[in-house]
């Protein structure tokens, strides 16, 4: 279970947010650009350090004091696939896996399952620098899932992708979250993406503060502020 209270001063706003997330559940963070959504994810991941507050996942205290990134055991997907260009696709997916685990038969089977489910077999031995943007997102998803993290953070991982691919990736994420039982926090500008990924819980942010909490349906039917209503209105 994730418990967090994050206080972080940005250029013009101060993010001041409390979150709780049960094991296996998902939460969507919604709001205008600069509302502090990505800052919250970065603070949980450890990319940024909160000015105050706390972050705790189960019995593991992330902050304070700041726990090194490599000890957090979380998945973090961003707009950039962040593949290591000097490695092959297969090496990217297995990156960070210990030799003992890599030698384990069950783990090998798990990697093969990921490879087949995410349609990575044709490019398994290709250099990561030579694959397309859509393929790179699949690889980064496989790489994240390979370690079976208990918490997954998604910071607009579908930006710039075509709708068909976004739909496939969302379906994959939902499938794996059910299979592996990980918790998920997603940030996106597109309400429909969050609605599909995290239908049960949503938080709307404005200038670093929470302006509404609830299910997606409630958020869409009765938005708490004019800005939120505007953001939820189709173009």
């Amino acid at each position, binding site marked *: 279970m994730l418990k967090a209270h994050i206080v972080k001063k940005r250029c013009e706003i101060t993010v001041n947010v409390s979150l709780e997330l049960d094991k296996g559940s998902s939460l969507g963070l919604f709001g205008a650009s600069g509302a502090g959504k990505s800052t919250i994810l970065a603070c949980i991941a450890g990319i940024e350090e909160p000015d105050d507050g706390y972050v705790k996942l189960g019995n593991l205290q992330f902050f304070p004091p700041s726990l090194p990134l*490599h000890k*957090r055991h979380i998945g973090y997907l961003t707009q950039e696939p962040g593949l290591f260009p000097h490695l092959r696709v297969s090496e990217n997916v297995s990156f960070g896996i210990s030799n003992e685990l890599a030698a384990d038969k069950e783990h090998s089977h798990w990697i093969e399952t990921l490879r087949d489910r995410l349609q990575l077999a044709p490019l398994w031995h290709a250099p990561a620098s030579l694959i397309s943007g859509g393929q790179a997102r699949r690889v980064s998803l496989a*790489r994240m899932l390979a370690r079976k993290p208990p918490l997954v953070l998604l910071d607009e991982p579908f930006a710039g992708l075509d709708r068909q691919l976004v739909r496939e990736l969302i379906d994959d994420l939902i499938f794996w979250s059910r299979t592996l039982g990980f918790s998920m926090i997603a940030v996106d500008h597109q309400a429909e993406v969050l609605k599909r990924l995290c239908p049960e819980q949503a938080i709307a942010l404005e200038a670093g503060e929470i302006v509404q909490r609830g299910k997606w349906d409630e958020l869409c039917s009765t938005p708490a502020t004019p800005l939120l209503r505007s953001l939820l209105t189709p173009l």
Partner: protein
Amino acid sequence: MRVDRRWLARAGAALFALALLYPLTALFAHIGPWQWGGDVRGSALSSVRVSLLLTGCAMVIIVAVGTPVAAYIARCRIRERLFWQAVLLVPILLPPLALGILLTLAFGPHGTVGKCLEHFGIVMTNSAAAFVSTQIYVGVGYYVLGAVAAFDAVPLTLQNQAALLGLAPRKVFLRVTLPLSRLGLAVALSIAWVRTIGEFGAVVVTAYYPSGMPVQLWVNLQSFGLPAVMPLLVVFLAAALPLPWLVHVLAQRQRHA
């Protein structure tokens, strides 16, 4: 007839390149038969050995010390980084002769460190130790500043991602930062190499003996004239130029790949 502008530009660049390479034609100048016998040959071969061996030692030390320093500076905040970069610029900006004189005084028998080293039998004038230490002072700034630039070019997001995938900082450095900055590091190393192996001003003060190639070239010029200089000059160019040239070509190929 209309001339393609691109061809005009190309002709201009070719003229520029010719002017740049023109000094190399002096290798074919009529200065009489080249001297390569007796004293000239022995001292020239000795200087080649000294230069390659001791410059190699200096480069090993520069890389061993400079790489972690550069990795640290690359992660510093801007103010601290500016401070370290300003420090690294000092030996680069000092005129070579001035650097040589300062090193002789600081590490010679009159300096505190020099006295201390002499106590342990390490002589820091006209010795291999003096030669190597001078070259380190000459080259380390070039290497570290180049290495900082190479580390800067590795996206921080990739290093963070590697850490989030469970790698401790040392492993992130070895498996992500170092491989992705290797060509930048090689360029930094080649610049430091060509700068140190060609150093004359500082080395002639601190380590006239054992003479490296630049000092020997000067000695040959003073003692025997140009015919005794040319063979050693060819060897010097062959030893100093291929590494940086090759690294530069490889770096450009990768950039445009």
